[in-house]
């Protein structure tokens, strides 16, 4: 088991195992809407007879309540993390009930992004489960008057094998409750061979509800007396209302009134965009009333933003010397001038388009806000609502519903802030419902990126010098408008950490000003970085007439740990000793994917091709083979995908496979059609007709996922499938057609036109 020591962790463990005051100090917190009775505000776990710690409580009837403090958007984290606790508690999973936590810093980090829920909380969940088991064992030993060391557990019971005695967890809850909570050193964690659930997994606790329409999403939240709001946002980022005529709007049946929302003060961060809200007695009336608004806008400084011009600018910047990010060998020396190959790659702005458009319900009452929201980050909801309304964070109760998809968009709670602002103005509960058009037009987009790569090669086609330069508007620009260079955490996403064993490497980044809000999208900067590096590598392999897999392995070189001494490499926020960058593990998944897909026997050409790519992101190593068939008129079919992964210890394998199947579909959308464009500062796309996402007839028919058996610390699984898929898909198109995809997406490419 890894021991990640950091300040926040230590503080957190004190909360878990330390004074009960942290738990007792909780204020009024209603349960997730409709999923329980109104209570004194604690979780069921808090209220249980035996409340071993923040994350678990056991009732006298044997019910075990486990708190899920991360948000459920389809990764089944609401099941997988509690499952870890249940294993160490030795609980019978059938008798476990899940409590969804509100936003509360007592749980530690709740921002469900970065594919890090398992790795950040695996140890904590184990320890919390083991602490509960320790108390139950002590209670039984006291009752039987035997040493605790003679007692053991089987699911949901403590047993004394010598005398054949047995007491259920429910029977022991009252006896165990007053016992001292154990210190971390006293805990006896199970050996991996003793795990019942970890590594085997369990289906989502929400599975049946999701198949019967009973699951509670943010879109389904309702409280008595609420009104509905639909908001007309400034069409250009940073714009303001100049004049408003709402007379026709107010004539629409069911419309109550309109309410202005102030434009944000830069930087935008998570503030509402501003605009005019139409308040109505149902969603439809609000939508209809909004169509009748007559607004003139002051568009502000981004009015001239044109994505065609912007692309040219990025490309020009990518051809000029940039800021040095990492250098190997004598990279300052003049680049060789013979046997040089160079290429430009481009990925446009991408929208998230989760199936559930943004929505939030908030009630401002007695100086406090209660919100119900499909949010990835309930503590950020507390922070932004607190600052927008001028109330303490503790007076913002954020209930987390299920999320109808998130992909990073729902980490940014501007939409929840809108509901809170409106509720305060109207003194009644307000549900803000974004349309699909709002969702597409007012996203925090994945950054548009231009990449320039250049290599000088030897007689075998292997690079002797390598230059790569990326240019993209950084996410940090939402917090500080002067930011134009990539920040270390996002440069580290597949750019700084080029894993190639080459004598001269120069990695640079150029400046780009943002004209829209930039955000995190499933695998983020890895999307464009892996696309550039893995496609360029494939191009070099073909130019050298070498097998792309053999060539890739040659560039990666021998198994070793990458050395980032004197390089800013944040490693996804993980300790580098615990999660080193090991080229041997990348090699292993490459070899595994090649073997499982039968790569060596594959013959590409004449409209049928196989593409390969490998990438490490979110601490997980992935290699992907994509098979395509391309018809004469350019129609692309994807019969099969083979993905090999090394994500360290995998808690829930079936769910993990599903994440990589889904990543292939997500990547398909990016390659085929993902593109947001702007003209005069206005986003040109609006719905699934002009921002198409992949449908059942366009996606890989069969995605095979091979999971490396590993006892290494757990890594991410939600995002890492996307980057290598995108590159491998494009490499497959080349193998089938001889045409290189350097500008995404295919839909805007003249390749097959």
């Amino acid at each position, binding site marked *: 088991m890894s021991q990640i020591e950091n300040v926040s962790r230590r503080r957190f463990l004190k909360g878990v195992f330390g004074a009960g005051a942290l738990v007792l100090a909780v204020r009024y917190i209603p349960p997730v809407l409709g999923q329980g009775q109104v209570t004194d505000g604690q979780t069921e776990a808090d209220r249980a007879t035996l409340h071993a710690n923040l994350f678990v409580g056991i009732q006298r009837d044997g019910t075990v309540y486990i708190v899920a403090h991360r948000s459920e958007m389809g990764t089944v984290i609401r099941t997988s993390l509690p499952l870890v606790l249940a294993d160490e508690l030795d609980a019978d999973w059938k008798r476990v009930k899940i409590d969804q936590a509100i936003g509360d810093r007592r749980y530690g980090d709740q921002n469900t992004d970065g594919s890090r829920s398992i790795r950040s909380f695996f140890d904590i969940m184990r320890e919390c489960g083991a602490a509960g088991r320790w108390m139950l064992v002590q209670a039984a030993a006291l009752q039987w008057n035997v040493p605790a060391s003679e007692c053991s557990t089987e699911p949901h019971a403590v047993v004394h094998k010598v005398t054949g005695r047995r007491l259920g967890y429910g029977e022991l809850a009252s006896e165990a409750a007053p016992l001292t909570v154990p210190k971390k050193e006293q805990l006896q964690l199970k050996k991996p061979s003793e795990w019942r659930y970890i590594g085997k997994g369990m289906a989502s606790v929400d599975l049946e509800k999701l198949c019967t329409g009973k699951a509670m999403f943010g879109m389904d939240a309702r409280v008595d007396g609420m009104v509905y709001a639909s908001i007309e946002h400034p069409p250009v980022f940073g714009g303001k209302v100049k004049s408003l005529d709402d007379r026709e709007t107010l004539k629409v049946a069911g419309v109550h009134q309109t309410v202005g929302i102030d434009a944000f003060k830069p930087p935008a961060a998570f503030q509402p965009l501003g605009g005019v809200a139409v308040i109505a007695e149902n969603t439809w009336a609000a939508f209809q009333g909004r169509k009748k608004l007559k607004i003139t806008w002051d568009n502000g400084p981004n009015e001239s933003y044109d994505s065609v011009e912007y692309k040219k600018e990025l490309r020009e910047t990518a051809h000029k010397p940039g800021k040095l990010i990492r250098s190997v060998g004598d990279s300052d020396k003049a680049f060789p001038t013979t046997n040089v190959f160079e290429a430009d790659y481009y990925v446009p702005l991408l929208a998230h388009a989760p*199936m559930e458009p943004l929505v939030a319900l908030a009630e401002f009452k007695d100086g406090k806000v209660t919100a119900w929201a499909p949010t990835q980050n309930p503590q950020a909801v507390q922070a932004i609502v607190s600052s927008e309304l001028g109330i303490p964070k503790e007076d913002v109760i954020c209930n987390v519903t299920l999320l109808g998809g998130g992909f990073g968009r729902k980490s940014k709670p501007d939409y929840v802030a809108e509901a809170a602002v409106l509720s305060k103005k109207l003194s009644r509960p307000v549900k803000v419902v974004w349309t699909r058009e709002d969702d597409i037009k007012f996203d925090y987009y994945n950054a548009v990126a231009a990449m320039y790569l250049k290599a000088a090669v030897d007689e075998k086609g292997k690079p002797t010098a390598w230059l790569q330069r990326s240019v993209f508007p950084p996410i940090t620009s939402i917090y500080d408008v002067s930011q134009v260079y990539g920040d270390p955490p996002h440069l580290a996403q597949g750019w700084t950490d080029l894993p190639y064993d080459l004598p001269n490497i120069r990695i640079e980044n150029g400046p780009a000003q943002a004209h829209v809000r930039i955000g995190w999208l499933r695998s983020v900067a890895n999307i464009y970085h892996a696309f550039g590096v893995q496609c360029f590598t494939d191009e070099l392999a073909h130019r050298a007439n070498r097998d792309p897999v053999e060539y890739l392995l040659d560039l990666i070189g021998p198994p070793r740990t990458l050395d980032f001494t004197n390089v800013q490499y944040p490693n996804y926020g993980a300790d580098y000793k615990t999660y080193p960058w090991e080229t041997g593990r990348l090699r292993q998944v490459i070899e595994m994917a090649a073997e499982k897909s039968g790569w060596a026997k594959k013959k590409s050409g004449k409209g049928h091709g196989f593409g390969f790519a490998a990438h490490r992101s979110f601490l997980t190593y992935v290699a992907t083979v994509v098979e395509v068939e391309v018809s004469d008129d350019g129609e692309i079919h994807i019969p099969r995908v083979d993905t090999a992964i090394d994500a360290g210890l995998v808690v829930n394998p079936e769910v993990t496979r599903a994440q990589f199947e889904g990543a292939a579909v997500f990547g398909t959308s990016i390659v085929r059609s993902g593109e947001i464009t702007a003209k005069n500062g206005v986003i040109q796309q609006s719905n699934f007709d002009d921002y198409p996402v992949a449908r059942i007839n366009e996606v890989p028919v069969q995605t095979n996922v091979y999971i490396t058996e590993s006892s290494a610390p757990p890594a991410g699984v939600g995002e890492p499938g996307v980057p290598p898929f995108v590159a491998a898909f494009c490499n497959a198109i080349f193998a089938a057609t001889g045409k290189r995809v350097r500008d995404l997406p295919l839909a805007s490419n003249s390749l097959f036109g």
Partner: protein
Amino acid sequence: MVRLKVNGIDRSFDGDPNMPLLWYLRDILELTGTKFGCGMALCGACTVHKNGEAIRSCITPMSAAAGSEIRTIEDLGANGLHAIQKAWIEMNVPQCGYCQSGQIMQAVSLLKSNPHPTDQEIDDAMAGNICRCGTYQRIRQAIKLAAGKVA
């Protein structure tokens, strides 16, 4: 006044006859299993049955639903899980699950008219239903699993 039957219950509605059935179901009847995804019949999240056929409730005005029998996801498993729902559960289809009510209603409609669809027929019937999480492979498998079991 629009009269219709929803999940076997007689209903009447005297609001805006242009209001889409989706919002009547969700906001007025509080049947929130049917989802809003696009408002333009592009994604299929709002799929319900009208007189047994899959329709997009987001573009079906109440006036067009008059006199019809509407069935939603809430009714599908009301008397025990439907064969499609059982198959969905067995294949672990949902990720976020938001689109799955629509996917399931669409699949039921497919298997009613074509009890043993080919891969191509499944794709044709399901291409109007988007799943952004990308559960399509399992949707296809679940439909095959339920094939022949839908009356």
